[in-house]
């Protein structure tokens, strides 16, 4: 799947039409077919190409996952493309290359560019981050509304801001349901897996301490199930797969809420599916938007935090890819509107609110 | 023609840098004992390895019972009823005797009628019977690691007999045995022949050939010199043919000129790994200009005494003094420097580094000293010069001079290299453990000469040997060991061979 569209090698067609952008996506070791984060970005590019058939994309995998190696990989190929799409925090360092290559456009996802000579915004870098707490909030509501045992939990990787945002958002959502709809849903936290965020503060939650440790994910999953939890939100990268396995193996009726992208496929369990819904970062749409901006000439470098107001956060309610009740969906959508308008503002790692007290609660 | 059961015609076999067999033709009659004689590296083992399917010849043909065959594997040889008792035993150390013997032709039984398993029980029984019927009693359940060398050899012989071999090849079977054991083995061989088997015997010992063999082929540097009728040939002539010159059997030994005491061993006790006392309260001393020989049946503690003196084994009690200096707890290197040369029993795994070249091996005891190295830096030219000098002086034969990998040298030449290295150390005390084992008579003569020469230079020499003849020939003083204790220490003139033999068997106490 290295080539896509009508590409025959990026260096062959020297005369590109105006919209014949040469795009490259450089991904972390999991690659653009990870059915998750990277793939979602890649799909954004693909759907752009569908509209602009002269554009081409090449995908390149950086095999170590090290930020320096990521930047080196970009440096190796930057000369040959017009647009460089880099999903992931590993690529924050491309700002240096952006300065050195002012004729190239960079789209950086889920990270802000690293500082270069005191500068943090760059005219040829469009860096997008997402308000994870919003998506977390929505699925927190979903969990609280759908739970039968009245016990829910969130499993994370490491307490980096993006993860804490998800966690706080989720907890905000649960609390919101408890308050607004009078439920009494408990958020289960396993002692021994509390997270310590980047400032050193204890944020609680269930942190596996790793984004790629499936066995630990499974241990946590099993422990939660044993405590009677029946809805688990996973925002833990590969570690989440372990939780899914634990749920599938369990003979209890437990559901998973996916993170980042629609994880419906991962939930297939025989004739059933364990995915309740998924919290979304709408990256594909935003990548496509920026590519379009490049074609339109409206592209501008910026560091933006994307929120519900641009439909950049959300949850899966597409027919056949979730198991939420009508009622739940309508309740969530109500809250979604409030969030879009800013009336509800769930807690995030650093926005000063807590899951127990945030605007709109 | 057809009275030959084995015929090898125009056999040539080359190894890199050497023609091991050069157009050799021999024929062996059914029911005879046929001996192969030749210096180290003459090509005896190679020729027999061809017959037993280990090697394929580069040229030449082999006929068995008149039929031309190409013996492609030991298995094939076994089918032709040829079996070889290798000098270097091919045994699995951790297996029992039975397991070793049945390996490859295991008798099977079924468990619950389904699962086949190796039927050790019945094999044990069968081997016990077999061993009795040939007078080779063994305990089939013993592990090889617990056996003496001569017992291991019995296992090798039993292996061949178990496979119903008709043609038995023995490669230097007596090299590792005591005189009594040799007697015994020769009787067995004679018995086998009477039982209708054909025997090929490789040995360096002319008296053995004289005693049992009918005919004898002499090889020299890969070529067949002659095939002799043993009855009608003198041992002297055989030796001459083999070495290509006159050999003197009398050691030209002058009386010893003994000087000051060099080595003193007091109440030495040594335990083996299992905590068993193998040397018990042994005391003796050796003076400069004296050859002190320890006589004894294998595994009576003599090697451990030598090892303890050289520092290879720990002493559990007692004292060792070298030139009045207490070395009981010194490290090996210190002892070497204090003046000990040591020719170990196991030349391949202790005496040499087989993957290194000759020059490097010859410098193994001196590399860290001037002129071989200075301030920790080696001087390669010195290594080469030294190597070349020793090769010359001690007639060490190797394919590519000092650069030859020691692994590819014949056993006799490996031994020469060790002896050369140790003599060159000029130590006041020299320990020789089985120095002539597996070495041809020409070389034996040389080694004995060298020992006496060193003695005459005033060295103290400790000789550990299983060969009674050797001990009687060269020793000035003989200590006889039995069961870890020195039974008797006396000057060699005052003892007869028979007496020594009796002490060795524990039949007589001093």
């Amino acid at each position, binding site marked *: 799947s290295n080539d896509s569209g009508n590409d025959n090698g990026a260096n062959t067609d020297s005369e590109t039409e105006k919209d014949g952008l040469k795009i490259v996506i450089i991904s972390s070791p999991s690659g653009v*077919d*990870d059915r998750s984060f990277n793939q979602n970005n890649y799909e954004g590019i693909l759907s752009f190409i569908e509209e602009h058939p002269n554009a081409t994309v090449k995908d390149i995998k950086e095999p170590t996952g090290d930020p320096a190696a990521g930047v080196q990989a970009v440096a190796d190929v930057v000369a040959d493309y017009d647009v460089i799409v880099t999903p992931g925090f590993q690529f924050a360092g491309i700002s240096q290359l952006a300065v050195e290559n002012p004729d190239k456009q960079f789209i950086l996802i889920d990270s802000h560019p690293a500082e270069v000579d005191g500068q943090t915004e760059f005219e040829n870098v469009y860096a997008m981050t997402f308000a994870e707490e919003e998506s977390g909030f929505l699925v927190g509501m979903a969990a609280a509304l759908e739970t039968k045992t009245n016990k829910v939990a969130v499993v994370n990787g490491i307490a980096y801001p993006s993860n804490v945002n998800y966690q706080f958002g989720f907890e905000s959502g649960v609390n919101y349901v408890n308050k607004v709809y009078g439920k009494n849903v408990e958020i289960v936290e396993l002692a*021994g897996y509390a997270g310590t965020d980047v400032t050193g503060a204890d944020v609680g939650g269930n942190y596996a301490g790793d984004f790629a440790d499936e066995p630990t994910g499974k*241990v946590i999953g099993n422990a939660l199930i044993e405590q009677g939890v029946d809805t688990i939100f996973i925002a833990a990268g590969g570690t989440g797969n372990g939780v899914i*396995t634990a749920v599938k193996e369990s003979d209890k009726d437990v559901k998973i809420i996916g993170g980042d992208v629609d994880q419906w496929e991962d939930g297939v369990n025989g004739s059933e599916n364990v995915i309740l819904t998924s919290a979304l970062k709408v990256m594909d749409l935003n990548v496509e938007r920026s590519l379009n901006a490049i074609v339109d000439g409206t592209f501008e470098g910026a560091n933006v935090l994307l929120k519900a107001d641009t439909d950049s956060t959300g949850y899966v309610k597409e027919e056949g890819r979730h198991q939420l009740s009508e009622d739940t969906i309508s309740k969530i959508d109500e809250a979604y509107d409030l969030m879009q308008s800013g009336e509800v503002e769930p807690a995030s790692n650093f926005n000063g609110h807590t899951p127990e007290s945030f605007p709109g609660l | 023609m057809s009275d030959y059961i084995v015929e090898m015609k125009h056999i040539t076999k080359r190894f890199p840098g050497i023609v091991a067999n050069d157009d050799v033709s021999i024929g062996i009659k059914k029911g005879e004992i046929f001996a192969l004689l030749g210096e180290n590296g003459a090509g005896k083992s190679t020729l027999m390895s061809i017959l037993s399917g280990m090697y394929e010849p580069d040229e030449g043909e082999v006929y068995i019972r008149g039929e031309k065959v190409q013996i492609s*594997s030991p298995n094939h040889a076994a089918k032709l009823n040829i079996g070889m008792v290798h000098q270097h035993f091919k*045994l699995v150390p951790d297996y029992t005797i039975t397991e070793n013997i049945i390996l490859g032709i295991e008798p099977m039984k079924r468990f619950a009628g389904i699962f086949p398993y190796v039927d050790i029980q019945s094999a044990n029984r069968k081997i016990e019977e077999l061993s009795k019927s040939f007078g080779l009693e063994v305990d089939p359940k013993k592990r090889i690691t617990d056996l003496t060398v001569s017992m291991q050899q019995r296992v090798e012989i039993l292996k061949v007999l178990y496979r119903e071999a008709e043609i038995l090849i023995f490669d230097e079977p007596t090299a590792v045995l005591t005189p009594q054991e040799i007697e015994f083995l020769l009787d067995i061989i004679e018995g086998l022949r009477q039982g209708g088997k054909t025997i090929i015997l490789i040995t360096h010992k002319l008296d053995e050939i004289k005693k049992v063999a009918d005919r004898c082929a002499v090889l020299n540097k890969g070529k067949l010199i002659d095939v002799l009728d043993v009855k009608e040939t003198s041992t002297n002539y055989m030796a001459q043919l083999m070495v290509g010159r006159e050999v003197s059997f009398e050691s030209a030994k002058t009386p010893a000129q003994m000087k000051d005491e060099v080595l003193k061993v007091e109440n030495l006790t040594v335990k083996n790994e299992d905590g068993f006392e193998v040397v018990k309260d042994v005391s003796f001393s050796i003076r400069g200009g004296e050859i002190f020989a320890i006589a004894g049946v294998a595994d009576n503690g003599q090697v451990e005494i030598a090892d303890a003196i050289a520092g290879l084994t720990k002493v559990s009690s007692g004292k060792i003094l070298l030139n009045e200096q207490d070395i009981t707890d010194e490290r090996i290197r210190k002892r070497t420097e204090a003046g000990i040369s040591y020719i170990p029993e196991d030349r391949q795994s202790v005496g040499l580094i087989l993957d290194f070249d000759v020059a490097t091996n010859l410098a193994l005891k001196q590399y860290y000293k001037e002129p071989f190295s200075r301030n920790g830096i080696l001087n390669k030219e010195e290594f080469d010069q030294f190597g070349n000098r020793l090769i010359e002086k001690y007639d060490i034969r190797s394919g590519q001079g000092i650069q030859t990998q020691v692994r590819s040298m014949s056993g006799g030449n490996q031994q020469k290299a060790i002896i050369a290295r140790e003599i060159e150390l000029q130590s006041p005390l020299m320990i020789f453990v089985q120095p002539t084992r597996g070495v041809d008579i020409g070389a034996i003569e040389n080694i004995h000469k060298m020992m006496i020469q060193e003695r005459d230079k005033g060295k103290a020499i400790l000789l550990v040997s299983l060969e009674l003849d050797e001990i009687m020939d060269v020793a000035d003083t003989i200590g006889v060991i039995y069961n870890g204790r020195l039974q008797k220490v006396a000057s060699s003139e005052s003892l007869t061979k028979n007496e020594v033999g009796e002490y060795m068997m524990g039949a007589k106490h001093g």
Partner: protein
Amino acid sequence: MMDTVIIDGLSFALPLFIIAIGGIYSEKSGITNLALEGFQGFGAFVGALSAVLIAHTSGIGVEHLFYVALLFSMIGGMMFSIIHAVLCIKFKADQVISGVVINILALALTTFLTAQINVLVFGQASDRFQLGVSDRFTIEFLANIPVIGAAFTNIYPFEIIIVIIACFAWYLLYKSKFGMRLRAAGENPHSVDAAGVDVSKVRFSAVLISGLLSGLGGMCFAYSISANFSSSIYMGYGFLAIAALIFGNWKILPTLVACLIFGFAKSGGSAIAMVMELPSSFTDLFMTLPYVLTLLLLIFFSKSNRAPRALGEIYDKGKR
């Protein structure tokens, strides 16, 4: 808590054990085998691929193909081990280099092929083959025994299969004539050769068995950890198996003990972390438990350890 330790510990220890047995076969025959990691990964790859392919073509749900996947993983591991066998035996390659290279190749090939096949055959970009989770069952009357009862609770079917195969492997290695020759080949190949047995054949079979068993172990890991195949199967468990078999002195039963120690120390580490109620960052410290424990135990138990005498030596008839 204790139950979880036992249940998780066993489901980790047994696949490790079967891979280690594979290693024992190979090394007992004299062939150093660092390639276990690659074998288990490639085996799991073939097993998972077969299951998804069969599911795709026949319409049977992939969750029903558990045993099919196990079977094919053995075939796959064995196929891949041919490389090691040919290199080490026929081409007299350095056994260490061969093992290392096979691991590199296995990771590269399976990652590449998984992506390629997903696109070409299933028309869907993915870096893994999704399997159904394995059933787990409980042997009721045994499960009620205090403490040990946990060993009969929530068992994966593969645990039973591994126990059965391990018994057979034990029998084959120590009681059959093949096993006798195999062990002899690793101690003194010349003796085997002189006995008219083809050393190469014995060693070849031994390596293939190691591939077969490792493949099975890999598939079990794939099922017990995430019920899919992806490159995350290469977690170093093959090397852990090597450590276990050396710890076990190249003998099957002591190796089982070593694997159980690993398994229980691993699940025990997680349990302790939970009991201690320290923040998640401290789990890293508890994760070291199996490894540190092993080292400590080795200090007491490895005095008499001894590798097969001819291990790693290229067999050459002429050489002694």
